[in-house]
């Protein structure tokens, strides 16, 4: 056989085979310049192919920005994206479910087309990095041959449908959501009504309300299994939520229906997709998620439109044709369930058993969590797991949103043997779902949007905490840490007990990696509440911050007090005061380690920014004003916590105006404090000139100011003000970034003009 296409022709679903052939043709068209780069970019995204860091052909090597002279020259696979640049392939795994044959092919793909590493994402997908686009059609064919598609893994489409990894075996669930997650995943894949969204659409399923499960509250559409008694018979349905999401500004989903009958699930999802496609924002990307449509229309009007749409849709037999099979949708164990009785146990077993084993509701069976450090495992480990799955778990393997893998339906009596085998493949780490099991998005390692090294920080925290794990107070052991490399929340920092997201600060004209500390989020109750940023801490101080907060929690918590209650009780002001010394950055000459990020020895500076006194002077003035804005938004948070929503709103708005003023003063020192003038000046000098625009988010953050200025809310609800505070944080971060860009330009201009050049206007 000369090609994979020929070799696998009989094994691939013909429709999938054709789609991949079409994609291969589009790839060739683009190579020949016969397909527009923007169209090709969205085309490849819808096949799960993302750009990766440095794909614009430039990389700062710690000394200077080097051009990466790819042989493809000017050929691009999207705007500013070199054809030959390594990219990322995301692979959808609906509800995380996979079988050993699929695991083996995934392992082969990582070896032959990537770097022999499989990365589990926070949406139960896999990601392969450093993949060349020319390899992607064969990669897709080989996956398709074992029933895996990459279609709509990215792009403005229905993303991987996630579900609780315990579905079907959970002790508390109303019923197993797996068949419904599978059905909706298949139904919406490539559905014509789901092709014209302004942004992505994420769906999740949970079997119960109280646990974290599928994190329903942070999804565009989330379904919680519920039952009711109807004429003496149990009737299945869903508590359906819509309009949730993390992202830069998180939204809690709204209740759409307290009991949506199972037969109405698919048609309602389709009707929602149609309403979203028709009425959702298309031009302003940052307002295009369904959460903004729901907020704009109000949940009642949105519901009315969806119900009305549902009535107009032609019947589709796929809506219900899977339902008769649902009662028979049972997983099969490969071994007879037996209790754990007296078998010899090796060293380390007990600790692993306590954290990584969950008793199924089916007697003598357990779910085993295989902890993957940073969500990574190697190709040979994946093959090893496939072999172990065949022996101990059968086809009952799932990925989790905490970037781990679970084996379900393991006989309890097999645990000692399984543990030994996991030790052999280096995957017997204890601590699943604990403070050492840190979740992190790819961050600056590979993501184009990453600001700071989320994985570098996660690795450092894991290493430090792992050695202390057994000695830790149980209350601390059970905390969760989640880290994002930027404000976009791929690491789900909003719902962690302790979350971080990457930012940067300029200290004496050098950039320093920082992380915003986010406290008060709730993982349980399906992501029941979102935390708020407390302040920006230098990346290198984060381990100390963590130690200080957790030690205080152990010392001062009252019996049974949750971490969230403890934070509330202490108060953010007091907590921030206690961390104030850790927020400072020593001078470069005093300790240069602060000026590089975790796991990356390169200096954390933008390429060619000089170290001129002129920039230094200006920085101090603007930074002073921006710090004042940060203080104001922090005070807004305090008022929010204390329930004075009106005052919180006022302070948050003032913070945004203060940050805008800081920037305006770089051009117009005597600007007045009048909001009308500040907004007008900001609009003219920074928005219309696009100086404030983020490379990827455009003018999104400026809109937060304009919206608050133009439409101040008349009703100050907690949710509304919470959202405003989030927006203000992002506005201030954007102001920092904007100032850094301005300072670089000033330095460059000063250098170009020679030593006698004028100082920049303050």
């Amino acid at each position, binding site marked *: 056989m000369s090609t994979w296409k020929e070799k696998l022709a009989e094994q691939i679903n013909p429709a999938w085979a054709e789609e991949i052939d079409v994609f291969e043709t589009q790839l060739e068209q683009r190579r020949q310049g016969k397909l527009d780069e923007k169209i090709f970019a969205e085309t490849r995204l819808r096949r799960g192919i993302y750009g990766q860091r440095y794909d614009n052909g430039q990389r700062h090597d710690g000394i200077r920005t080097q051009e990466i002279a790819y042989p493809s020259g000017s050929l691009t696979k999207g705007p500013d994206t070199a054809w*030959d640049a390594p990219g990322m392939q995301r692979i959808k795994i609906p509800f995380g479910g996979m079988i050993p044959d699929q695991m083996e092919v995934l392992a082969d793909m990582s*070896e032959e087309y990537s770097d022999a590493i499989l990365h589990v994402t926070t949406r139960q997908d896999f990601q392969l990095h450093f993949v060349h686009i020319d390899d992607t059609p064969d990669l897709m064919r080989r996956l398709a041959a074992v029933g895996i598609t990459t279609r709509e893994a990215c792009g403005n489409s229905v993303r991987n449908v996630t579900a609780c990894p315990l579905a079907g075996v959970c002790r508390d669930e109303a019923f197993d959501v797996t068949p419904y997650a599978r059905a909706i995943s298949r139904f919406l894949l490539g559905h014509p009504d789901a092709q014209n969204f302004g942004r992505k659409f994420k769906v999740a399923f949970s079997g119960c309300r109280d646990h974290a499960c599928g994190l329903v509250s942070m999804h565009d559409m989330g379904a919680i299994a519920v039952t009711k008694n109807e004429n003496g018979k149990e009737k299945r349905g869903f508590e359906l939520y819509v309009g949730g999401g993390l992202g830069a500004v998180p939204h809690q989903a709204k209740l759409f229906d307290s009991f949506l009958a199972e037969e109405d699930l698919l048609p309602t999802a389709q009707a929602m997709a149609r309403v979203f496609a028709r009425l959702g924002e298309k031009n302003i990307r940052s307002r295009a998620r369904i959460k903004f449509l729901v907020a704009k229309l109000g949940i009642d009007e949105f519901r009315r439109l969806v119900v009305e749409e549902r009535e107009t849709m032609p019947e589709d037999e796929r809506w219900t044709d899977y339902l008769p099979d649902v009662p028979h949708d049972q997983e099969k164990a490969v071994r007879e369930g037996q209790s754990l009785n007296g078998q010899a146990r090796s060293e380390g077993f007990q600790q692993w058993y306590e954290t990584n084993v969950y008793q199924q509701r089916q007697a003598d069976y357990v779910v085993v969590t295989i902890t993957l450090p940073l969500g990574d495992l190697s190709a040979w480990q994946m093959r090893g797991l496939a072999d172990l799955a065949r022996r101990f778990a059968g086809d009952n393997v799932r990925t989790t949103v905490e970037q781990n893998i679970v084996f379900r339906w393991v006989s309890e009596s097999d645990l000692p043997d399984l543990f030994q085998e996991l030790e052999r493949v280096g995957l017997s780490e204890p601590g699943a779902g604990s403070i050492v099991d840190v979740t992190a998005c790819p961050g600056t390692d590979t993501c184009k949007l990453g600001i700071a090294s989320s994985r570098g920080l996660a690795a450092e925290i894991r290493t430090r905490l792992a050695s202390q794990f057994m000695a830790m107070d149980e209350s601390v052991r059970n905390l969760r840490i989640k880290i994002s490399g930027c404000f976009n929340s791929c690491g789900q920092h909003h719902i962690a007990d302790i979350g971080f997201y990457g930012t940067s600060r300029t200290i004496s004209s050098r950039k320093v990696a920082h992380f915003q500390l986010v406290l008060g989020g709730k993982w349980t109750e399906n992501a029941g509440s979102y935390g708020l940023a407390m302040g920006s801490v230098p990346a290198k101080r984060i381990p100390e911050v963590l130690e200080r907060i957790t030690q205080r929690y152990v010392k001062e918590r009252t019996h049974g007090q949750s971490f969230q209650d403890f934070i509330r009780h202490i108060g953010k002001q007091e907590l921030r005061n206690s961390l104030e010394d850790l927020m400072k950055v020593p001078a470069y000459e005093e300790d240069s380690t602060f000026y590089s990020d975790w*796991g990356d020895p390169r200096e954390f500076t933008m390429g060619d920014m000089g170290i001129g006194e002129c920039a230094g002077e200006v920085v101090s003035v603007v930074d002073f004003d921006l710090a004042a804005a940060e203080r104001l938004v922090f005070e807004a948070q305090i008022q929010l916590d204390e329930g004075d929503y009106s005052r919180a709103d006022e302070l948050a708005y003032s913070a945004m105006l203060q940050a805008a003023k800081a920037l305006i003063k770089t051009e117009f020192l005597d600007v007045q404090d009048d909001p009308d003038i500040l907004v007008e000046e900001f609009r003219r000098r920074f928005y219309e000139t696009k100086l404030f625009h983020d490379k990827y988010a455009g003018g999104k953050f400026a809109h937060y100011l304009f919206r608050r200025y133009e439409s101040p809310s008349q009703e100050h609800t907690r949710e509304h003000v919470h959202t405003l505070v989030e927006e203000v944080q992002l506005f201030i971060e954007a102001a920092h970034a904007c100032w850094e860009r301005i300072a670089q330009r000033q330095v460059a201009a000063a250098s170009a003009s020679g030593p006698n050049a004028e100082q920049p206007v303050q």
Partner: protein
Amino acid sequence: MELQRLGVKFFLHDSSQLKLGDLVPVFHSWIQKQLVEDHILVDVHNYSHVHEGPGILLVAHEGNFSIDLRDGRLGLFYYRKQPLDGALESRLKNIFRTTLQGVRLLENEPQLGKVQFKTDELLLVANDRLNAPNTEATFQLLEPELSRFFGQLLDGDDFTLTRQEDPKERFTVRVQAGHSQDTQALLDRLD
């Protein structure tokens, strides 16, 4: 056989000689100084948290280098990603030249102290299950050409070629020679 995606692993004399974390700044410096011939170096990735994984990875357009930890044995693994011109012998020469250049750079790197690679054992990997399935038939097909190549590279030293037989793994041949020679000597023979 149109075999392109070949890889080579040279093992360290003593795995304890190298601290993985020390490789991160070294690989970054390779990028800063563009030290690898005919390679567009892209980035460094740290996989030291993965048990017996790729360790520290240096990504290049043409092929990747990694301090591979498989089976607990540290070594420099280079695998080609982009096609090369010429017959198999020429491609083998090219890939060995690049790998040995990497080996020499590490052996001469002051930040790493004195690390030494052995040449009496190495792995040749075909990262291509389509063109080189891990079968005896593939081995039989390639064995004469590989024998010729290693005969020249090892300058007449005795050696054996053994296929690693797990059919799920990539086609991998272990080359076992009578003596460990200087890496520079091997490199010189490739010219």
